[in-house]
C-alpha cells in the first residue's frame, strides 16, 4: 500500500509490539491508537488500562480523554483513581507502559513538563500526569513519537520521567527494578536500547526511509544496528483496522451536540 502515512506506519509498528498476554497502561494519542489496533488485530486478549481506573477496556472508538464514558462501559471493571495508582500500577501488575513524549533523549528520558527553565519556562507543557510512576513501575516502557530535532534532543530540559538516565546501570543504581524503555517507535524507525550503554539504536527502518532521514530529524548522533532491518509495511488488515478506527473516532468526537 503506497499511500501509508508515516504516522500510520508508526502506529502499526507500535501495535505489533503488543501481545494478548500484555497488561498495558495506555497513554492518550498515538499509544492509544496502537494499543487498540493491536487489540483489534493480533492481540484480542490484551488488557488495556487507562489511568481513569478502567481495566480491560475495549472501546469502539478511540477516547479523546483518558476518561471517556466508553472506556468504562466496555471495561471489565472500573476502580477509583487512588486504587489504580496503588494496587495496579505501583502493585507491579502492568507489563507495558506506553508513553508519548514532547522531548526525549537517547536514553529514553522524557520531558513533557517545560521547554526552558522550570520556573521561567519558554513553553509550559502539560506535565507528567501518570508518567513518573508509569516509567518506574511498569515491567517495561514503549515510547512512540514523531521524529523532529526539537523532540529528539541531546539533553532534555526536564526529567518528567526517568528512562535509563545517563545510561548503563543508572536505573539499578537508583533502586529501580523494572526494565524501563525497551522500545522506541517513531514515524521513521524502530529503536531499541543497546544492551550495555542503553542508548537507543535504530534496529529497523520503515519502508522507504533512509539513514539520513532518521539522522536529519534527530538531535543526537544516531547509532544504527549492524543488522539493520526494514519494518514490514502495514498489512491491509492492519491499515484498514487503523483507518476504520480513526474514522469512527473522528465522527464520534466531532459530533458533539446533536443538531
Amino acid at each position, binding site marked *: 500500500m503506497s499511500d501509508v502515512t508515516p504516522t500510520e506506519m508508526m502506529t502499526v509498528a507500535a501495535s505489533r509490539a503488543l501481545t494478548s498476554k500484555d497488561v498495558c497502561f495506555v497513554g492518550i494519542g498515538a499509544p492509544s491508537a496502537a494499543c487498540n489496533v493491536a487489540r483489534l488485530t493480533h492481540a484480542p486478549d490484551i488488557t488495556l488500562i487507562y489511568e481513569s481506573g478502567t481495566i480491560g477496556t475495549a472501546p469502539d472508538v478511540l477516547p479523546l480523554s483518558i476518561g471517556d464514558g466508553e472506556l468504562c462501559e466496555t471495561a471489565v471493571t472500573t476502580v477509583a483513581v*487512588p486504587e489504580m495508582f*496503588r494496587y495496579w500500577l505501583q502493585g507491579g501488575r502492568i507489563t507495558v507502559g506506553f508513553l508519548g513524549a514532547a522531548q526525549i533523549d537517547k536514553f529514553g528520558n522524557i520531558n513533557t513538563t517545560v521547554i526552558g527553565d522550570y520556573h521561567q519556562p519558554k*513553553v509550559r507543557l502539560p506535565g507528567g500526569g501518570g508518567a513518573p510512576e508509569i516509567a518506574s513501575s511498569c515491567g517495561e516502557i514503549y515510547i512512540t513519537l514523531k521524529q523532529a530535532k526539537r523532540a529528539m534532543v541531546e539533553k532534555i530540559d526536564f526529567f518528567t520521567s*526517568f528512562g535509563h538516565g545517563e545510561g548503563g546501570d543508572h536505573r539499578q543504581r537508583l533502586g529501580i527494578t523494572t526494565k524501563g524503555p525497551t522500545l522506541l517507535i517513531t514515524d521513521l524507525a524502530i529503536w531499541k536500547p543497546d544492551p550495555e550503554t542503553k542508548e537507543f539504536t535504530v534496529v529497523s527502518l520503515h519502508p522507504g526511509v533512509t539513514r539520513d532521514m532518521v539522522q536529519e530529524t534527530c538531535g543526537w548522533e544516531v547509532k544504527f544496528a549492524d543488522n539493520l532491518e526494514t519494518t514490514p509495511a502495514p498489512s491491509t488488515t492492519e491499515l484498514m483496522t487503523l483507518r476504520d478506527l480513526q474514522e469512527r473516532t473522528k465522527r464520534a468526537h466531532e459530533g*458533539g451536540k446533536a443538531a
Partner: protein
Amino acid sequence: MMSKFIPLEQAVRENLNDGDTVAFEGFTHLIPHAAGHEAIRQGKKDLTLIRMTPDILYDQFIGMGLAKRVVFSYAGNPGVGLLRRMRDAIENQYPRAIETVEHSHAAMANAYEAGAAGLPCAIFRGYKGADLPKVNPNIKSVVCPFTGEELAAVPAIRPDVTFIHAQKANEKGDVLIEGIVGVQKEAALAARRVVVTVEEIVPDFKGLHPNLTILPHWTVTAICQVRGGAHPSYTHGYYERDNATYLEWDKVSADRELFAKWMDDNVLNATPAVFAERTKGL
C-alpha cells in the same frame, strides 16, 4: 452535619471564601463545571485551586485572574493539547502571576487518599529519577523501618471545600457516584466542607447495589440540583462528554479577547439553568 438542599448560588456563597483552598474534582467524568462557573460569577478570588487535571475549568478560573496557586499533576486539555490561559499566566503572568505546586498523578491520588484517611502525609514508591522533587519542596521521603527502602512522601490534601458533581442524591441527602469514580470520594472526605451538584434527587436508593460509591448525608454540607452540571464533561447514564466543546476550547483559550468574550457570554451572564439546555441531545 445534615445535608442542605439549596440553590447553587447560595451553596457557593456560603461555602467558598476568597483565599480558600478548593478542589473542584472529577476525573474527566463528572467535572463540576456548573459549580465552578458559579464561583467565577461570584468573583471568588485568591484561590488555591487543587485538581489532578486542571482542565478547561481551571483554565477559566486562571484566565479570569481568580487563582493564586494551582496544585496539579497534569495541566492539559485532555487529548487536545495545552491549557492556554494557564500557560499565559505562567509564561507571561497574564492576567496575574500564579504559583504552581506540581505533582505526579500517583502523588496527588495518594495525597487525596491520605486526606480522606485523616493522615498527615502519604507514602508511595514514586518520583524515582524524576525532576519534580527538585522543584517542589513538598516532595520528601521516609525510610521503611522494616526494609530500609526510601519511599516518596507528600503532604495530605485537605481542602477547605470540595465541589463535586454526582448522578443522584436521595431525599435524606446521601449522594451516589458511579462509572469512572475518580478521586471524588477522597476529595470530598478530605475536605472541611463538601458541596455536591447532582443531576437528580430521588426518594431513596432502594434496590441499588450495596457497594456503590455513596457519600452518606452526614458527610455532605450542601446539595444543589443542577441538570447538566458537568457539561462539557459528562454524567454516566445521563449525557455524554461533549468532545467538540473541548476541541473548541483550544481556539477560545488561545486568544485573550476571545476568551474574555466567551466568559462574558457563557459564564458571567449565564446561570446554572443553562447547563440543562447545553446537555440536551448529548
